[in-house]
């Protein structure tokens, strides 16, 4: 955590300085909102760096129609109110046509509402709540929503021959979205959900929740979650002797509690496809610019966000309405760092490259892909 905080501070300072450089008349300004202080700082910083890599690349190649891209980065502090303040400043004061944002679903939805009212564009690089599909023409997601990923997860588990599962997810839009989508797909394939747990985040233990799972005796667990809470869930499960496989949406964001116990037990569906040429180029650019710092997958989402935005702007200029109309066309044929991007009519990503990953010997291994 300490290291993350440090990175965040350095990142925030660097980004703040980038934001302070004078904006020329021939510049195109694009807003970035991320959590530079507060929770999830490192992932936000990584996303913002991905945007920066894309901006460097585009500017080096002559910018958009001869104009240089200038990024204005604002901090949302992982608070809805701060995110709205940042968005208002970017849309109204800096007059940016589009904002690239990293934040939790609740922050993203609030900003999407504002962008819709103002007729501006918002590119989502982080949130996967199915509710984000309610802003067609305003919000475009680089990340596939939970319903898509959850569905793949449910189908995958059913294919393994498992008949009964319990769902264990945090009681938030992300967790419930995964549980609903995966559970529905699993039932459709003939399985049975014997217990659904939606736990409250931030509790010191989940003994009672996990005991109810043990009592239901499922063959496997469908899960989603992250951070300290996921670690506590695993601890309680291990102590209660719940030795069944865990299938998760985004297993890589879990915090594993006990390497030996978890070894070979945890697998699931995660975003993938970074191993193509674009992804490799982004990774190389990252390593050149921030040598010695560990990259996270979030850089690819930041990178693709600006790339598709720039592609649309290159065609239609800086009018947000025109950009929104052009974006679905702009992604056609674009193979980004996160793979080929295709959107449904909600502006939400469909058929994303998904990896099947498994926890082995203390780290995740890609064991297959779903395309």
């Amino acid at each position, binding site marked *: *955590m*300490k290291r993350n905080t440090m990175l965040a501070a350095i990142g925030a300072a660097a980004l703040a300085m980038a934001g302070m450089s004078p904006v020329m008349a021939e510049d195109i300004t694009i807003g970035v909102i991320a959590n530079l202080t507060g929770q999830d700082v490192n992932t936000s910083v990584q996303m913002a760096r991905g945007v920066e890599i894309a901006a460097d690349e585009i500017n080096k190649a002559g910018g958009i129609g001869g104009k240089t891209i200038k990024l204005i980065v604002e901090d949302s502090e992982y608070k809805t109110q701060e995110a709205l303040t940042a968005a208002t400043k970017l849309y109204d004061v800096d007059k940016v046509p589009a904002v690239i944002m990293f934040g939790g679903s609740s922050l993203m939805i609030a900003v999407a509402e504002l962008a819709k009212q103002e007729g501006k564009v918002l590119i989502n690089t982080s949130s996967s709540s199915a509710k984000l599909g309610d802003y067609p023409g305003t919000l475009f997601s680089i990340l596939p929503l939970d319903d898509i990923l959850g569905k793949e997860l449910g189908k995958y588990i059913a294919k393994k021959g498992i008949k009964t599962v319990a769902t264990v997810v945090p*009681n938030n839009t992300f967790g419930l979205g995964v549980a609903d989508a995966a559970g529905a797909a699993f039932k459709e394939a003939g399985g049975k959900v014997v217990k659904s747990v939606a*736990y*409250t985040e*931030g*509790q*010191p*233990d*989940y*003994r*009672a*929740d996990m*005991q109810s799972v*043990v*009592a239901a005796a499922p063959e496997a667990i469908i899960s989603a979650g992250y951070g*300290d809470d996921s*670690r*506590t869930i695993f*601890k309680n499960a291990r*102590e*209660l*002797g719940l030795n069944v496989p865990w299938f998760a949406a985004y297993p890589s964001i879990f915090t594993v*509690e006990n390497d030996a116990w978890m070894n070979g037990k945890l697998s699931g569906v995660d975003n993938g496809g970074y191993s193509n040429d674009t992804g490799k180029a982004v990774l190389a650019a990252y390593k050149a610019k921030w040598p010695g710092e560990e990259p996270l997958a979030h850089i690819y989402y930041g990178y693709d966000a600006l790339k598709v935005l720039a592609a649309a702007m290159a065609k239609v200029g800086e009018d947000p309405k025109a950009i929104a109309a052009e974006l679905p066309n702009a992604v056609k044929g674009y193979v980004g760092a996160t793979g080929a991007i295709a959107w449904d009519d909600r502006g939400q990503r469909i058929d994303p490259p998904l990896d099947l990953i498994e926890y082995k010997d203390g780290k995740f291994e890609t064991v297959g892909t779903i395309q």
Partner: protein
Amino acid sequence: MLQVLVNSIVYGSEIAIIAVGIALSYSILRFANFAHIQYAVVGGYATYAGTKLGLPIVAAIAVGAVLVGGLAVLVDALVFSRLRAIAPEGKMIVSWGVALFIRAIIASVFGGSAIIIETSSSTIQVGGAIFTSLDLIVVLATVGFMVLLQLFLYHTRHGSALRALASNYDLAVTRGIPGDRMIRLMWFVTGAYAAIGGSLIALETRLQPNMDLIILLPVFAAVTIGGLSNVFGAVIGAFVLSLAQNVVIAVDFGSLLGGDPWFVPSQFRDYIAVLAMVVVLVLRPASVRPANA
């Protein structure tokens, strides 16, 4: 239902060992010490630090208990001893200030993220109830420390002197019982017990700076149910509210009312503690009457 009972005993044990200290200090000094909760949290972190320095867990808890006992004495010397003459409400508010100060120090030393103390425990299954060997140790440790406290308070000269001070302070000091020195002893014992309780909770759950807010309500509810100044009343209070909490979240109210299964979400546990406290106070108002009024 056996599982509910087991859960209640485990949780009640964790709360009880912290609650007795509040009752003990209240009985002598007549104010609710909110900093006590922080002594438990510091104890948990001290145990973590001890294990990081290579101490076995039991030794780490023991060292932590002694250090936190010392901390409680120090806080008294620096703060509470200077405020003996002010109203209990004033002392209570000052104790809250002390609590916030200690909390800020913990957060700055250990950071804001959660810490899990690694333990290896095995699963035990008895008649359909599942618990861990750690649970068993927690309960046995609590029983042991309660017996120890009972022996100290009722069968030693200094323990009896503490009860005498609690029962009638002026009479006690005019019998030659050195009030200030005995109060320091009392703080040491309460601080050490809080640290042991905090360490057990840390082993069972996880350390995080807001652990104080998580244990605050149940601990104070237990002490209040037990009659504030009654040390073993606090233990009974802890088990009463623990049972209430665990029963309420285990009952399928949905099916009882003829609908789909519906349970009270577990995050409402603390409000159930408060509810249990209110119910007990309404049914048994004598329990809050100070012992020697």
